[in-house]
């Protein structure tokens, strides 16, 4: 009987909360205390450590931005595996901390964990990073948000293409899944827009956090002549530091990695979750409906380009700035034909184009011409 009791309790608390929120919203102008009573409580869950210089740190920074708001409370938990443990963490945040909204940020949390909890707690909102909310299949109290991070990755590619002397770039990737392949291809397309003779050699490590393999791959890519490295793994720390130690350039990913490589850091792709999370908190506070699907790129401020490192040449800066400008104006399309894959097959015909919002891009299973590697 426990669950029903809990649910009743939650519902009661929730109704109280709603009433308070309503009162708060009505009297926002007149009474500060009513607003204070309607604190928005949000729970964040990370699959890795908060300070990984990567994916999890990006979310932690987003969560930390909420701490500045006196009407919001954010709790978080790190190193939560994608097992029943994440379900328990969600329940614990709901039952013990009174969280109204949960942000389980790892991709593997979605199915079955978030879906199971959303069914059990219909009055709580679950917002998931990276998933694709489907109105037909998924509950209404679930939503997903993500950014077109391949836009700043493309910009980093442009810079890398300009700065490389050997014309060989290295990309260390976790596994050949669509999100990762899209970043590799965007990086290669960016670099080859600067210089069509550039090649990008990709190494898959097989896991999101595999520091030993990441270091080995970085070293072997440098041994093969690569002079700019970048990556798509949970934390770019190992790759960027190895590149710096070996005296080659690097591009970051997830967060600003310039402190790890003061000499060789060029630029990188970063998330800007603080903006996204503050917007969500504001919507909840105002009692407005929360959109089930949020996507955005550089223009919408969901992602950003890291400040250029000291090594970046003026010509590279100029070229990259021009691309950023096009993205900001909304008339830059990365996947514009003709594009061939690296086996010579045409994947996007001349004249055809796939804008960022195109769902087709989210099932990518090919590597673009100029990428050395295979998706198998």
């Amino acid at each position, binding site marked *: 009987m*426990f669950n029903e009791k809990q649910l009743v309790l939650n519902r009661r608390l929730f109704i109280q909360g709603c009433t308070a929120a309503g009162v708060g919203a009505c009297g926002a102008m007149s009474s500060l205390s009513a607003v204070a009573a309607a604190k928005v409580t949000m729970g964040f869950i990370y699959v890795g450590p908060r300070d990984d210089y990567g994916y999890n740190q990006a979310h932690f920074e987003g969560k930390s931005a909420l701490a500045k708001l006196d009407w919001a409370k954010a709790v978080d938990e790190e190193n939560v595996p*994608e097992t*029943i443990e994440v379900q*328990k963490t969600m329940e614990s945040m709901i039952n013990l901390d009174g969280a109204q909204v949960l942000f389980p940020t790892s991709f593997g949390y*979605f199915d079955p964990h978030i879906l199971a909890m959303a069914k059990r707690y219909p009055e709580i909102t679950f917002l998931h990073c990276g998933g694709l909310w489907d109105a037909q299949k998924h509950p209404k109290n679930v939503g997903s948000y993500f950014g077109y991070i391949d836009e700043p990755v493309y910009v980093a590619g442009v810079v890398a293409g300009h700065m490389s002397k050997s014309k060989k770039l290295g990309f260390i990737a976790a596994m050949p899944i669509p999100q990762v392949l899209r970043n590799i291809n965007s990086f290669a397309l960016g670099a080859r827009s600067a210089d069509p003779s550039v090649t990008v050699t990709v190494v898959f490590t097989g896991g999101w956090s595999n520091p030993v393999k990441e270091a080995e791959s970085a070293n072997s890519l440098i041994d093969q002549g690569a002079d700019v490295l970048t990556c798509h793994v949970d934390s770019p720390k190992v790759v960027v530091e190895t590149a710096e130690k070996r005296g080659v350039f690097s591009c970051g990913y997830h967060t600003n990695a310039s402190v790890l490589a003061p000499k060789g850091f060029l630029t990188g792709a970063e998330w800007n979750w603080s903006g996204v999370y503050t917007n969500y908190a504001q919507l909840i506070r105002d009692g407005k409906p929360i959109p089930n699907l949020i996507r955005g790129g550089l223009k919408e401020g969901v992602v950003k380009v890291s400040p250029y490192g000291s090594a970046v040449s003026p010509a590279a800066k100029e070229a990259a700035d021009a691309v950023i400008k096009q993205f900001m104006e909304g008339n830059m399309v990365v996947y514009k034909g003709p594009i061939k894959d690296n086996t010579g097959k045409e994947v996007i015909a001349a004249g055809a184009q796939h804008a960022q919002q195109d769902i087709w891009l*989210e099932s990518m299973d090919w590597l673009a011409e100029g990428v050395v590697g295979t998706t198998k």
Partner: protein
Amino acid sequence: MTALRETWIISLAALALAFSLVAIFFATTGNSPWEVFYTLYRGAFGSWFSWQNTLVRAAPLMLTALCTVLPARVGLIVIGGEGAVVVGGLCSALVGITLQDQSPVLVITAMVLTGAITGGMWIAAVGALRYFRNVNETISSLLLNYIAIAILNFLVIGILKDPATLNNPSTHSIGEQNMIGQIGDTSIHWGLAYGIIVCVMLWILCRRSTFGFAADVVGGNIRAARLAGLPVAKVLLWCCFLGGAAAGIAGVLEVAAVHGRANSALNAGYGYAGILVAFLARQNPLAVIPYAILLGGIQASGGLLQRAHDLPDATVNVIQGIIFMVILSSEMFYGRFKWLQAKN
């Protein structure tokens, strides 16, 4: 029965010492130990919700602990629970997917049997390498974990991948109707019952059967066992098989009760946490149950520690590490104190 009083007193004293050391650790982080202990208690056992949280986490630990306990009866130190979980889970998922449309009872039975047999064979291989080729079982079982995980990742990213699981490569689903549900109204799945039943059954086997006696003789002195005419190879391989089978069932439960499919989440560290439980329980299948619950409780309250006291997640590892070291060190006090020995 004679050693029972000694076991109780030394274990409790060790736990008390461990928790005092943990208290000192909390004090160094600038927290009041009492408050942190209260949070630990609240997160692990303080309410029915916390109890459910604890028991759900304890279930797989009971089964993976047995993977170290059973081989230890014959004197082998096996740390391959993780690999057996992965192999058992993966193979049972394949069976579940193939039999999907049969009756759920048949599907679950077939899955549990597959998981137990494949997990058992995995660890039996460790025993065979040890017995016939003299390969160190600790090293081989550890390395087999990596092989199991690599096979899982290879198959799940490759030929077994459900194309719909784009960014989280997984096998196809075994079907909602074939999942093992929750116990009554609780949020605890039936895996807990499997854990307790297997622990009790193996305790009976170890303590109340000729097989268990033979295993103890083999573990005590393998040459004496041979001279006494015991089928040493058979006993040794069966112990390894049974341990692996228990861990294999833990993998089945991850698939059939939690995920509905096999993916890299199978390799979540239950096998390694089980080693800790096995040593805390001093390789006694029945003692595995309370120690798995204790460890499940510490893990369950880990989240609350982070949220309520701003302690890092590593705190849980520190607590587990301190308990582990103290309990292991306490082994040297067995048989040292006369007043603890039973008077015959």
